[in-house]
């Protein structure tokens, strides 16, 4: 009996995926879908929240709102004193923590050897970052307000903020220093430069923009903090003249944006709805703009890097 001729394989079918292949592809697509949903669940709240806040704040947002002082027991007017107060506190914190933080990072990267002591410092940095903000407030109260006799003042609050945000600046500066190739340092040592000359002449110029990124990040972080300043120098209300650029002395108490938002939304009855929303938008806007700036700077640095 003649064998039945084998049916020629249709070329269209020959390269089709197998059953196993299809299962493989589907499972992959499914996994991707699941994880994509989870990632989307993270992005969406951000967009929704920002949009919602802006919509609710819109009736109150204006230049006038930024430049005016609070009126009628904070139920009207603007946020000028809080805005200036935040600038004071942030600058005060920055003046203290930026030099200490940068130098600490230089020590960790350029001087310290890899031993138990180095690990202890790293541990301390991590722990400092993990201390709850309210404990920082207690520390500021105990150490600066009472022990150092600075009283409830911008100085106390700034110092508290400075110590709180120190880990931010140490971590980011260390990353910036790590990005400078080791060969640069070695070349510099080989021409007879001392350790410090190498740092000043080669390491810092090549990492200064990265350090700046960290400083901006710190500003953003400091501007948003509330708990540490609540008991060390920030007040609910302070009478300030409209448009006064320098309303506070260093020993004064000050209003702050974050504190103002807390006050408006929990302590003052019958506040028009839009006011706290507008304050929240200004605070959020400041913080996110700062952050975006640091991100943009980082991207720009990455494209410009030659090594």
């Amino acid at each position, binding site marked *: 009996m003649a064998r039945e001729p084998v049916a020629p394989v249709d070329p269209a079918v020959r390269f089709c995926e197998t059953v196993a292949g299809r299962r493989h592809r589907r499972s992959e697509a499914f*996994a991707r879908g699941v994880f994509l949903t989870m990632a989307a669940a993270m992005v969406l709240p951000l967009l929704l929240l920002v949009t919602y806040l802006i919509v609710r704040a819109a009736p109150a947002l204006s230049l006038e709102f930024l430049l005016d002082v609070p009126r009628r027991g904070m139920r009207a007017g603007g946020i000028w004193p809080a805005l200036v107060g935040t600038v004071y506190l942030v600058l005060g914190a920055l003046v203290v923590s930026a030099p200490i933080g940068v130098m600490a990072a230089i020590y960790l990267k350029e001087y310290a050897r890899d031993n138990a002591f180095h690990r202890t410092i790293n541990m301390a940095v991590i722990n400092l970052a993990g201390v709850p903000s309210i404990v920082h*407030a207690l520390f500021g109260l105990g150490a600066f307000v009472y022990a150092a006799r600075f009283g409830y003042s911008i100085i106390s609050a700034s110092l508290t903020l400075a110590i709180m945000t120190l880990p931010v600046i140490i971590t980011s500066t260390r990353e910036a220093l790590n990005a400078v190739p080791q060969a640069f*340092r070695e070349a510099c040592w080989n021409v007879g430069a001392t350790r410090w000359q190498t740092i000043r002449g080669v390491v810092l110029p090549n990492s200064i923009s990265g350090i700046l990124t960290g400083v901006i990040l710190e500003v953003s972080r400091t501007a948003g903090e509330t708990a540490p300043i609540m008991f060390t120098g920030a007040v609910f209300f302070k009478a300030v003249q409209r448009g006064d650029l320098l309303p506070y002395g260093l020993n004064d108490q000050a209003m702050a944006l974050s504190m103002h*938002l807390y006050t408006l939304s929990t302590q003052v009855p019958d506040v028009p709805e839009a006011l706290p929303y507008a304050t929240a938008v200004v*605070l959020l806007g400041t913080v996110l703009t700062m952050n975006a700036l640091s991100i943009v700077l980082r991207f720009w640095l990455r494209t410009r890097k030659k090594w």
Partner: protein
Amino acid sequence: MTAHGPQTPHTVGSRPSRSALAVLGERALENLIRLSGVSAIFFVLAIFFFVFREAAPVLVSDSFSLKEFLFSVEWYPTSDVNVRYGILGLIVGTACVSGLAVLIAVPFSLGSAIFIAEFCGPRLREGLKVVIELLAAIPSVVWGFIGLTVMSRLIVAVTGAPVGVNVLNGGIILALMCVPIITSIAEDALKAVPDSYREAAQALGATKWQIVYRVLLPAAKNGLLAAVLLGVGRAVGETMAVLMATGHAVHIPRSLLDSVRTLTANIAAELGEASVNSEHYRVLFLTGVLLFLITFMINLTADLVVRGVRRER
């Protein structure tokens, strides 16, 4: 200089001589740098010292018992006749809110970390990382405000609860705050898994899905655990958001829709009213010491877990 590279700069031969002042200045500056280097240790110790110093007198006072402090639910700090400092209700409040937050946050953060590390292209990855960074940057008082306004209304509308500020609200808000932290650390942990693991699994015909839960998750489990721990630490220590979003009832909650107060929120709410050096004031500082120790332990554990990973490799 750390382990790599020569330990000291080149010193053989003669250097061009410098003025004594320059050498002296350099030495002074280097000492300043060393001093800053140890500042982190100094500050951690200082925080403990100063907070403990304010709290210490109450520990030896007769009317105070540590046992009652830790295990009693009766918190009547301002009562005229029956002053009681029992923080069990606050501890349970903290545990409930942070527990719920971590429960919500962990699946989402691990999911997004896996998506970012394994499934998306470089463009999308950069975009998502930026979003994570921005999410992490939102100040806690803004989160608290959102909890107080948006979330509380939502909760009242959906569940019919009498008040919108409760365990559920605080849990969701804290979860939103923890997600970016856990995600970014978890993503780092996943990225640290060598590519050869993935390639080996792929060569055996494993699907992406199989690679994730058979290869990546076991390989990165310590790093992921550390990420979760740091998330817990953040949730326990968070103050403003829970102060505004969880309501103000010091008791052991019976349901998700009960108001509670946490350890952190309690300090923030009452420190302003407690007169300086009173017993109430000192007990609040003692709560601070407790919080410090809790977060310290959590961070220490996270660090040890991560170091365990490094030793294995």
